[in-house]
């Protein structure tokens, strides 16, 4: 197995610690938060360091699927089976953020006809419950999709509110005594005698060195950069994927093309919107999240096969994320890279106490953490079992699973109709104030990620200044022009790509409000700054 440590060699190093082992996790995405939770549950003192906000990288820049694994049933049956196992565990642990939509795989005339049978068999081999459906029935139930469905299969795909999941994991870590440091950037590592001893981080409060017995690199597409700080190589292939956001869910369940997994072949209903994606392009820079105009046409041309009327739909925006796939050593170049994650024990090349976990997907974030945790414990000679799958998330509400109407139910129950700050996504003033008061959140973007303010049709036109006013109540250093301007420019980055039909009108209306009514000036430095994480 590539990248896996040899247990015997690692056991040669026994830590001289008389306290609970201390771990530093680098990266605040789903993987990093799951790693922190896994180790906290095994008794580690955990500190998680994230350079932006929680879940602001790849964890929030994908199509939101909690995979049944059916997508990989033919190409990678083992990985498909792992997805199915994990999908059930995640839906159980974090029911409140998972929507059990179900998934469809449809064969269209363009798709290879022999693939359907292989798909069915692959699902069975991977223990994925699969059922072939009558195509006429499927077309009747899903009026938005092509009228040329030849075969159709139902699988237990689901969707996940990834930001909420990441925050649930992080809150659970906090409750177990762990520390979560957001907006802390790792600038160096402390190595003594070939052993990792800590990391140096910088934040608004200045520089500080955090000591640790182990350092776990879970920085996703940035993990190669993190490893490079101590001269270690992590060989990643970064794949940029762009997605368009349709104004409605369009379909009742996630609909995939029944063909070998490739680009732009899936629509996922999530929240109040439908996501169609994704393009696929190898990039060098993990910060490359710029969507090109040609990608939009490529997406629309392909979407038209599955959703014939897509060009008449309103599309709110487009965005891109970077997926890190691990390139195992000596992997044949013509073979698609494995989807399964890898754990690298850098002790194998002379840096004891430093591990990297990479590859995998959001669906398998927990098993990635388990695997890493096992190897960390093995290397430390600790006998601490993984209990993350059987320990309830202290922060998760039990119940039926998340549904789009949940926000509205809350408002009905609280009778807080007049305090909505965001009509598009039904966000109440009390939710905003809770995050500002109790979590110290003071950036518009961080509120957006947690509450979906600015996600709806108006893309922050009305809620932006309302939320800003609430922030300003607590933080008098709020600067209208720069803070609101940066928020609007970030929204614009996605909107300009899909500014046709009603959304073209929306883009102009929003810009009119921001500049003529609010008086915000889009200074060049706001327009050229990088993504706000």
């Amino acid at each position: 197995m590539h990248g896996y440590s040899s247990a015997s060699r690692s056991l040669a190093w026994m830590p001289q610690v008389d306290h609970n082992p201390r771990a530093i996790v680098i990266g605040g995405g789903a993987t990093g938060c799951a790693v922190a939770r896994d180790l906290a549950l095994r008794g580690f003192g955990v500190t998680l360091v994230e350079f932006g906000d929680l879940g602001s990288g790849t964890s929030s820049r994908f199509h939101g699927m909690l995979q049944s694994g059916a997508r990989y049933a033919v190409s990678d049956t083992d990985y498909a089976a792992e997805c199915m196992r994990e999908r059930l565990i995640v839906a159980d642990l974090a029911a409140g953020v998972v929507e059990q939509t179900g998934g469809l795989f449809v064969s269209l005339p363009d798709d290879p006809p022999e693939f359907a049978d292989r798909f069915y068999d692959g699902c069975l081999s991977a223990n994925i419950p699969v059922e072939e459906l009558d195509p006429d029935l499927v077309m009747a139930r899903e009026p938005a999709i092509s009228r040329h469905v030849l075969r159709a299969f139902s699988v237990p795909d689901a969707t996940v509110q990834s930001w909420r999941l990441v925050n649930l994991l992080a809150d659970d870590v906090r409750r177990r005594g762990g520390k979560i440091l957001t907006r802390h950037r790792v600038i160096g590592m402390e190595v003594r005698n070939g052993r990792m001893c800590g990391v140096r981080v910088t934040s608004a409060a200045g520089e500080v060195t955090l000591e640790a017995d182990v350092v776990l690199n879970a920085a996703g597409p940035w993990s190669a950069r993190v490893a490079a700080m101590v001269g270690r190589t992590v060989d990643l292939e970064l794949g940029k994927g762009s997605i368009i956001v349709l104004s409605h869910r369009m379909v009742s369940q996630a609909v995939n093309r029944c063909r070998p997994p490739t680009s732009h072949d899936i629509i996922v209903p999530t929240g109040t919107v439908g996501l169609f994606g994704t393009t696929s392009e190898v990039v060098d820079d993990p910060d490359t999240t710029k969507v090109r105009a040609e990608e939009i046409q490529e997406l629309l041309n392909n979407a038209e096969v599955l959703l014939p009327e897509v060009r008449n739909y309103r599309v709110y925006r487009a965005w891109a994320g970077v997926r890190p796939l691990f390139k195992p050593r000596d992997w044949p170049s013509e073979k698609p890279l494995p989807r399964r994650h890898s754990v690298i024990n850098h002790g194998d090349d002379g840096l004891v106490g430093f591990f990297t976990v990479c590859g995998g997907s959001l669906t398998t974030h927990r098993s990635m953490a388990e695997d890493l945790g096992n190897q960390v414990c093995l290397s430390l000679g600790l006998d601490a079992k993984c209990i993350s799958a059987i320990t309830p998330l202290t922060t998760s509400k039990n119940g039926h699973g998340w549904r789009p109407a949940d926000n509205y139910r809350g408002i009905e129950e609280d009778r807080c109709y007049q305090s909505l700050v965001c009509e598009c996504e039904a966000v109440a003033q009390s939710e905003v104030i809770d995050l500002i008061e109790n979590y110290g959140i003071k950036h518009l973007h961080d509120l957006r990620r947690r509450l979906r303010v600015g996600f709806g049709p108006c893309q922050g036109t009305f809620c932006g200044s309302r939320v800003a006013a609430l922030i300003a109540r607590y933080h008098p250093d709020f600067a209208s022009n720069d803070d609101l301007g940066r928020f609007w420019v970030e929204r614009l980055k996605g909107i300009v790509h899909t500014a046709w039909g009603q959304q073209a009108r929306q883009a102009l209306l929003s810009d009119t409000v921001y500049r003529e009514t609010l008086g915000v000036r889009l200074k060049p430095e706001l327009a050229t700054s990088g993504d706000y994480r």
Partner: protein
Amino acid sequence: MKTDAIIIGTELDGLIAAIRLREHGYSVRMIGTGGGSLHYTPEGIHVLGFSPRNDEEIVCKPLDIISQLDQSHPYCKVGIDQIRNALDWFVNILGEIHQKITISGHNELAVSATGLSIPVYGTSEHQATVGNIGGKTAALVRFRAYRDFPVELVAIELGKSGTKTEIVDVAAPGDAVENAALAKSFDELEEIDSYFTALKNSIPSYADVMLFPAVMGLSNFHRTLASAERVLGMPCLEVPTLPPSIPGMRLERALTNHLRNGTASLHSCSGISGSSFEADQIIVWDDMGRQYEASLVIVSNGGVLMGGLDVDSYGVVHETSFGFKTYQSEPLKATTVDRSLNALHITGVETDDALRPQRNGSGFCRNAFVTGRTLPHWNPAMECSTEGVCVATGWAAAENAHEYLESLNVA
């Protein structure tokens, strides 16, 4: 029934053209879907607040730099003399309809909905500007449960520019929490003086100016603000709110009533479903299937913003009612965010210097004129020039239409 002119859209520019054509004695019919973009723009007459070349460069004397603009800019097509005439005429009209505007020849700094400054050429009586509140102590009114006035931001920004502020929480009359409903509740409040008398106790004694969100009445705002000033004994000014803009609606309402009194026909709530375009006669069908005939048409349908122009998913701009040729910078979907957005703002129907559009394959029309946001080569949001361009082009279109109609009579 045939009229001399049909005006498509109920934008400021269309209203201006209609009023001016009525003054020349022509019969006019306006067809539009209702609420124009005046509902989205704040108080005051914005002529040119910022240089079209730089989002941050404030213009002091807009009329002095018109000649430096690109030749394709609507202002250059209208020309400086006509712009002056149009603005003078407009201020006179506003005086007649009780919407007093002061023009001093240079831009004032108006207070925006977040307390930032926006240069404005003509200010109305109760508009908060840096000039009339600077150095003072302002009581900032926060209506309970009202969301569309970010008063905390106004307080912070005014504080930076030397105005002391104190936020005062008060209850609005009735339970209204939306702009139009709030304005209506002030209009309908019978005991207006006692409302402000009750409010007086919560205002700090050291305040010397009151700032209200601009929702203090729609048809009856003069009465409300006069009562406030009388009872509170200090200037009472308005700061813009999120849309819909009540001051914009006041202006639209006053102009519309003025036009109705002049017996023009207004058909709001209908869109255009088709047209027949001949050299001397234009027929328009609305989406109720009604047919209207006229000698000429003025298209002031608000461009892309108001749905007068369509952008398709390939990024191509269409004028669908008459098939006029459009301008778009190539490509509409540019490489950077600000350029893409600007490209979207500056699309429109291409015209000659007399604001006459071209139809597919033929030359410039003699009997059609285009105004306001339907014109290309200007970016209202960046320049803060909406009212100026709308008034100037609406006026110029009416003058050019007058010339055309006269030539018909001579023939």
